[in-house]
């Protein structure tokens, strides 16, 4: 079984595949005219809907013609079948390969019966046909017993029904079910169901379907027979139904550019979150690679992702996510969390990439759309229970793979700094404003030698012992754990004649490497009723509860708090106090204790376990009832209401044993005469609470029309109306002096009086440093957004070869300022496709699938909320103004010309399939051009504002997306498939007004430049190291210089080196899948290239620090210039003296060309392994499918253009069982 080829689950590959070479022709009598589409879609909706009703009522009076009149001589069989289909309205299901061997047809009939005509046509053909439920299934004779199929049966006493599924339990559509020894049979419906009446003497049923191995099943008195068909040799490729979120259409008729990720592909990964699973699965979709050195874990991390590169400069850059037809909004200021969705409930994900696909989502779809469809129940299906139980294990991070200097090197630097007098000011024998600061153990030992209290030899011995230690051992031992996640998921789906359901329950329990946790429980329930024919009422309900947080002291595990030789426990393993870089000297701690203040010594292990927590509970409730009514003539009307409520509450508690809180309370504690203490901040814990509520109300009305008109015409159209209102209510509060036992808190905090800092009083240093107690924020936030949209989309297909599509959507929103001006935006698209392979002249037999498509359209983008067309002010309460007056502030100056952003995109695509789909795939080329992009530019600050936001920017982009599926080896037992994704994307700023003549000469803030990518890497020109001093050298006015201040301030834009784009311009993946019998192994290799990044290197000012070394430096330290001649081998500057150390020198080096590297890399993303038990061979097995799976998130570079050391990313191993009960 091949799991790497994307295919829509649950389709009988053969039959439905050819729905793109056949299709459902239906004919109406000549005297009925279809509804006239002359009226413009964007007329007022009410009027349009009224017109539609009238049209629909007219059309509903039609009936089908059942008699055939036909004259053909030597006509291709396919053409003849087309004619019959047109005349009768019957659908023909067959594959093009089947028809290849057919003989030309001669026929001359008048008003003949369908059966007669078919019999005539199929006489002498190597083919057979069967009729069921307005469909004619055409198949090869070899696959069936060599008897002719007779027309549908006369009513019989016994009814047998059941479902036909594939090995994964997915229903198969279009399977022929034939009573052996007769010519009576039916085909399975869209849900794999069949119903057949048999005689008592009928013994055996034959299930056959192209692409599957046919099966004979003995009836044995049963009335329910479910069958699992196994894929056969003549397997065909991609079958797809694309979903735009409110409409599904066969991929064959689509003109736009889509990528479909079905549940099989999606479930290849065992990552607990949806976004992580999408990595490397669709061309044109870029997920940022895990390159952050400090990012220990990929688990639970939200990857940034984008579709086809950037479409905007300053507005939201993430794609619109649609879940079951409605927008899911998780980017600020919204609170919906995509991670609340249970990945096991997802049926498929469609990525809408081009304008035709996305423009229907209007002003929010400028960055592309991800359409997520969840699983639903099936009519006439026995309850099917599936479950998935899995575990994931992530080992502790590899802290030793980071860029830290060795302990010995850091001690070497400390010695050097000490010799230069760096720590003299921290000598605790003198009381001054710095003597509360601690110094490191090494510096203390050296100071003891200087003070004569320790011998040089003893100090050296102790330092030598310290240099063998590494704090990372203790960090790993005490603050990290092996992460274990468990997942339990069960779902039941089924249905009767008039009712179908899908119920699922999932529970995830993730424990992260740094003791963070996440628990998610979700229930998903979809009930659909079909009370009367053609009326469908659906009641989906989902509820999920997500709790994440941590109960440990998160700040203590950063090892820049400590010297590298710090030990958290003594020789006996008991937690011990350590020197904490942000803490205090021992002298200070003793003095503070004697005055009755909190003990400020720092014990990392105790601090890690001190009572405290941060937790966030998110509940998501969605209710989405809909009602749909279809008329047989192709019209259907659908009304959906969607209510989603997200409630997110965050609580942060710290007890007063947490060091930072103790410190804060101490700082304000006032020491009176006789050491009487008063507490502006009460002793006790702090509690912060925040509740965010998001309520989405959506209403959608849709009117669909999907029908054939006349012989060669088909129309698929939809018009709709959409209304969305979102309320966000946030309340937040914080309290000092919280006592968990008594529930008491400090209700009144004086945040006006300026208190003197106690630290000086403790040291008896008469300094006045005063500050007021900062309030723990409290307040409310209310936000409301409303969208009202009307849209229409129509596709017209002629002769099943030519499709023209068009769409338009008008959006109105309340976000553009508080007035109604310029709110409406109309976006549109047009497209066309040509199925070259369907042309009569097309005879390339090795390339049976060839389709050309193109679209052009406008996509929109929503600016951030701060952009307003009118001058706005914000009100603030008097309590936040110490003058005691309520007040307001100006948010922005008016911008009467503010417009929505829009991006035009042209897409040209080619879909192809080599014979037997040995190679199949698609190539898309696109260009896009963004106008009216909203940008911020520097203003003359004399105007009172330093920046201004308006429609000032433009960009263009272009790219290629390639998807290639190949079947390298395919035998009965062994298969090897490859899936190659390739994407190229380049963008460029085309306008950014006004371009300032002058600019700030800092390379990390070079303004957007016309002709350059939006995100670019620039650097200072590098002139190597000075051979005499090892100082980094740059240029001033073309001359080599070490005057860093001048280099930084006077390097002009033209002097700055442009290195290249910062975003990958080439990326993709190669996934190989091997299967042998039930075993399946696949590995995904991702690559990205054509971009640059800045490497980090040694920064001496940071390394030297203030009171002690807290920076871990950088391993480049060992490559630093040390003596003349080194400059030939290294670019790493020499270590300066304390006096010569300058942050400008470090800054210049950091932003010089010497540290810009090419980012090209190839990564082994993951390996997936599974074994499917052949349950049909196990007698009495309760399972219809049973799979053991394993997944290894490898996350490892195979190759990099520049070998730049980065902390090894985390790896995860998952394994589990996926099974379906019979």
């Amino acid at each position, binding site marked *: 079984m091949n799991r790497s080829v994307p295919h829509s689950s649950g389709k009988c590959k053969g039959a439905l595949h050819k729905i793109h070479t056949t299709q459902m022709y239906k004919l109406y009598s000549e005297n009925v005219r279809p509804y006239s589409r002359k009226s413009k879609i964007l007329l007022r*909706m*009410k009027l349009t*809907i009224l017109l539609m*009703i009238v049209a629909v*009522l007219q059309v509903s009076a039609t009936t089908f013609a059942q008699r055939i009149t036909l004259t053909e001589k030597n006509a291709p069989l396919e053409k003849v079948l087309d004619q019959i289909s047109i005349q009768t309205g019957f659908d023909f299901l067959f594959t093009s390969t089947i028809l290849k061997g057919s003989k030309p047809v001669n026929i001359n009939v008048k008003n003949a019966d369908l059966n007669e005509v078919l019999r005539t046509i199929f006489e002498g053909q190597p083919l057979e046909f069967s009729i069921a439920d307005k469909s004619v299934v055409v198949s090869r004779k070899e696959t069936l017993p060599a008897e002719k199929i007779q027309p549908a049966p006369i009513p019989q006493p016994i009814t047998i029904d059941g479902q036909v599924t594939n090995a994964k339990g997915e229903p198969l559509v279009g399977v022929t079910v034939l009573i052996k020894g007769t010519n009576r049979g039916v085909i399975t419906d869209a849900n794999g169901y069949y119903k057949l009446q048999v005689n008592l003497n009928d013994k055996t049923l034959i299930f056959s379907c192209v692409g599957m191995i046919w099966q004979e099943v003995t009836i044995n008195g049963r009335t329910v027979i479910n069958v699992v068909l196994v894929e056969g040799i003549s397997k065909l490729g991609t079958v797809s139904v694309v979903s735009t979120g409110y409409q599904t259409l066969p991929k064959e008729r689509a003109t736009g550019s889509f990528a479909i990720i079905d549940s099989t592909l999606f479930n290849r990964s065992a990552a607990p979150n949806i976004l992580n699973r999408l990595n490397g699965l669709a061309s044109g979709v870029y997920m940022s690679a895990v390159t952050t050195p400090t990012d220990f874990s990929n688990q639970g991390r939200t990857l940034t992702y984008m579709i086809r590169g950037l479409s905007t400069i300053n507005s939201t850059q993430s794609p619109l996510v649609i879940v079951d037809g409605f927008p899911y909004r998780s980017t600020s200021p919204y609170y919906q969390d995509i991670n609340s969705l249970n990945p096991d409930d997802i049926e498929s994900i469609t990525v809408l990439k081009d304008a035709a696909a996305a423009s229907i989502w209007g002003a929010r779809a400028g960055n592309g759309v991800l359409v997520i469809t969840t699983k639903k129940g099936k009519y006439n299906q026995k309850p099917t229970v599936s479950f998935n139980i899995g575990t994931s294990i992530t080992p502790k991070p590899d802290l030793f793979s980071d860029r830290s200097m060795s302990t010995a090197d850091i001690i070497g630097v400390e010695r050097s700094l000490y010799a230069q007098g760096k720590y003299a000011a921290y000598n605790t024998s*003198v*009381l001054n404003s710095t003597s509360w600061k601690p110094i490191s153990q090494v510096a203390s030992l050296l100071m003891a030698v200087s003070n004569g209290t320790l011998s040089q030899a003893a100090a050296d011995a102790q330092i030598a012992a310290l240099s063998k230690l590494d704090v990372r051992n203790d960090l790993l031992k005490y603050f990290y754990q092996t992460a274990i996640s468990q997942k339990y998921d069960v779902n039941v789906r089924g249905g009767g004649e008039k009712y179908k359901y899908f119920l699922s329950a999932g529970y995830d329990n993730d424990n992260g490497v740094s003791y963070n946790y996440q628990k998610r429980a979700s229930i998903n329930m979809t009930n659909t009723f079909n009370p009367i*024919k*053609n*009326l469908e009422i659906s009641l989906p309900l989902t509820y999920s509860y997500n709790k994440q947080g941590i109960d440990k002291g998160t700040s203590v595990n950063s090892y820049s708090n400590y010297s590298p030789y710090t030990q958290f426990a003594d020789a006996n393993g008991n937690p011990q106090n350590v020197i904490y870089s942000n803490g205090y000297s021992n002298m200070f701690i003793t003095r503070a204790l004697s005055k009755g203040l909190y003990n400020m010594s720092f014990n990392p292990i105790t601090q890690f376990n001190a009572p405290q927590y941060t937790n966030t509970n998110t509940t998501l409730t969605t209710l989405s009832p809909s009602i749909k009514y279809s*008329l047989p003539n192709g*019209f259907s*009307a659908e009304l959906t209401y969607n209510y989603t409520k997200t409630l997110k509450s965050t609580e942060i508690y710290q007890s007063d044993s947490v060091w930072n809180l103790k410190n804060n309370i101490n700082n304000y504690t006032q020491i009176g005469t006789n050491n009487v203490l008063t507490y502006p901040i009460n002793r006790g814990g702090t509690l912060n609470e925040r509740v965010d509520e998001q309520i989405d109300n959506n209403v959608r*009305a849709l*009117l669909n029309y999907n029908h054939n008109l006349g012989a060669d015409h088909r129309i698929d159209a939809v018009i709709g*109306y959409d*209304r969305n*209102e979102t309320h966000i209510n946030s309340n937040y509060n914080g309290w000092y002096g919280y006592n968990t036992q008594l529930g008491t808190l400090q209700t009144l905090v004086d945040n006006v009086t300026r208190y*003197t800092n106690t630290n000086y009083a403790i040291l008896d*240093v*008469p*300094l*006045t440093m005063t500050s007021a107690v900062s309030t723990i924020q409290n307040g409310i*936030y209310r*936000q*409301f957004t*409303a969208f*009202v949209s009307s849209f229409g989309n129509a596709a017209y297909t002629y002769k099943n070869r030519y499709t023209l599509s068009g769409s338009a959507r008008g959006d109105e929103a*309340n976000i553009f*300022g*508080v007035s109604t001006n310029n*709110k409406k935006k109309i976006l549109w698209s047009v497209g066309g496709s040509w199925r070259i392979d369907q042309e009569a002249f097309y005879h390339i037999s090795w390339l049976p699938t060839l389709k050309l498509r193109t679209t052009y359209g406008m996509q929109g983008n929503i600016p951030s*909320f701060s952009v*307003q067309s009118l*001058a*706005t*002010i*914000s*009100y*603030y309460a008097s309590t936040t*103004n*110490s*003058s005691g*007056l*309520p*007040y*307001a502030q*100006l948010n922005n*100056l008016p911008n009467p010309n503010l417009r929505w952003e829009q991006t035009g995109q042209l897409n040209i695509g080619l879909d192809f399939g080599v014979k037997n789909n040995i190679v199949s795939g698609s190539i898309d080329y696109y260009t896009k051009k963004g106008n009216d992009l909203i940008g911020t530019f520097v203003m*003359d*600050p*004399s*105007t*009172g*504002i*330093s920046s*201004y936001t308006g429609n000032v920017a433009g960009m263009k982009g272009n790219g290629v997306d390639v998807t290639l599926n190949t079947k390298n080896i395919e035998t009965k037992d062994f298969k090897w498939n490859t899936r190659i994704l390739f994407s190229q994307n380049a963008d460029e700023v085309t306008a950014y007004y006004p371009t*300032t003549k*002058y600019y700030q000469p800092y390379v990390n803030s070079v303004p957007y430049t016309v002709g350059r990518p939006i995100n670019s890497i620039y650097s200072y020109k590098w002139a190597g190291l000075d051979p005499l001093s090892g100082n980094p050298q740059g240029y001033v006015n073309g001359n080599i210089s070490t005057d860093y*201040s001048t280099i930084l301030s006077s390097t002009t834009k033209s002097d700055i080196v442009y290195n290249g784009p910062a975003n990958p311009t080439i990326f993709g993946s190669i996934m190989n899948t091997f299967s042998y019998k039930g075993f399946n192994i696949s590995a995904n290799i991702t690559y990205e290239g054509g971009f640059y990044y800045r490497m980090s290197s040694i920064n001496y000012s940071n390394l030297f620090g203030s009171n002690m070394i807290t920076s871990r430096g950088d391993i480049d330290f060992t490559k630093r210039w040390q003596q003349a001649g080194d400059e030939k081998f290294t670019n790493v500057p020499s270590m300066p003296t304390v006096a010569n150390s300058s942050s400008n020198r470090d800054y210049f080096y950091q932003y010089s060309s010497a540290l810009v590297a090419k980012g090209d890399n190839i990564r082994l993303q993951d390996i997936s392994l599974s074994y499917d038990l052949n349950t049909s061979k196990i007698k009495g097995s309760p399972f219809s499918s049973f799979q053991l799976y394993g997944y290894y998130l490898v996350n490892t570079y195979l190759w990099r253009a520049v070998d730049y050391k980065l902390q090894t990313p985390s790896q995860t191993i998952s394994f589990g069982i996926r099974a379906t009960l019979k």
Partner: protein
Amino acid sequence: MTMKMKQIIFISLSILMLFVTSCTKDALNKKPDITIATPSTIADYQYLMDGIEGGIISNAPGLYSYCNLGNFLSDEYTTTDAYYTSNFSGNKLLTGVFTWNTNMFNDLTSLAEWNYQYKTILYANVVSEGIDAIAPKSTEQSAWNLAKGMALFIRGQMYYNLSQFWSKPYNASTAKTDMGIVLRKSSNATEVSVRSSVEETYQQIISDFKGSLKYLTNTSTANSQLSKIRPSKAAAYGALARTYLAMGDYTNVRNYADSALQLYSTLLDYNTVGVTAISSLANFNAETVFYCMDQYGSYGSYSGYWTINPDNQALYDNNDLRKTLFFFKNVSTGNTIWNGDYANGYKFTGIAVDELYLMRAEGNAKLGNTAPAIADLNTLLVKRYKTGTFTPLTATDATTALNLVLLERRKELICRGLRWSDIRRLGLSVTRTALGVTSTLTAGDSKYTLPIPPYVISASNGTITQTP
């Protein structure tokens, strides 16, 4: 199912759809955020004016202004060689201010003294324009007057502060051609910024202050915090006196200082203020006419590197409370600390009664009225000496009186941002030495006018030109 039934279902569904598609406009007209609005009422404009007070930067009481940079430019502050070595070296702003170097702002991308004062001017312009468009009812007249008067006063105040740094010192004979500051008279950000002449600068300041007089009320006798945060007539008179002082128009200095003192003349008696070594004078104290303060502006993080010039302490008599209450030594650094501001730890830059007395005295001394000048000095000083120790000053000629007044300005108005203005208008010279290198500011020096920060010139695309 009958055709009729199908039709009924379809019609019902369609009617339901019609229903949901109607009534849409309400939602689209709702505000996305309840805390925002387009300003339209008198109250909105008053909120905006009160927002300047503290709101723009943080929740500190009262109006921010940015004159404290002047303290560091003047002889009131200095530094030690040790501080200079460890902190000033390589920092263009610190070394530039210390040596009056024209490159002092070259490394900056933002300077509070410029950006925030012009931001405040924008608020004043928005309010002034907005309030003009409102025809107040009779019951609203006083509220309307307050917003309008405040907008004018505050704009004048900001122009004055800016002029003390970036406008050349006033010289009547060349004022029409000397470069003044950028005057932003409307809220329209698309208007190009250009520098005015010194004459235009000062005329604008005077016209704003005088304009505000029409609308402001007398300081309330209640002497409340509010009456000090919001400007009063007395504040406007005081501000006019200050402006004329910078122009050397001593008749107006005397007259306007006198007008202010007619309205309000309460002095603090330092014998009774209860100041200790670590607490400065209270906010909104009785001597304050208009409260305004500076949290060091761009200099905030650097103030610790400076020390008050120890020469200042020597100016005071031993019985002078200002010497004992406000000066003390930091035992660890050996530096002198001064702690006598009227803003509880921040630097007071508003108008207080002591300054009004000193301005009236200087005006009178310049005009040859020795006796009233000395009388004002004595009125003030008796409240500054230990009770019973003050011997009234005497002077027989106006020059002696003037010198006494100027000395007293230096002692009484220390760290109010006024010393820099005095150095400029009086053409005083200042000498500073660090690491053996001496920098001097001499009379008529072009360094009396600060360079326009290069980032401002660049952001204006060069429409703002550098002072030659």
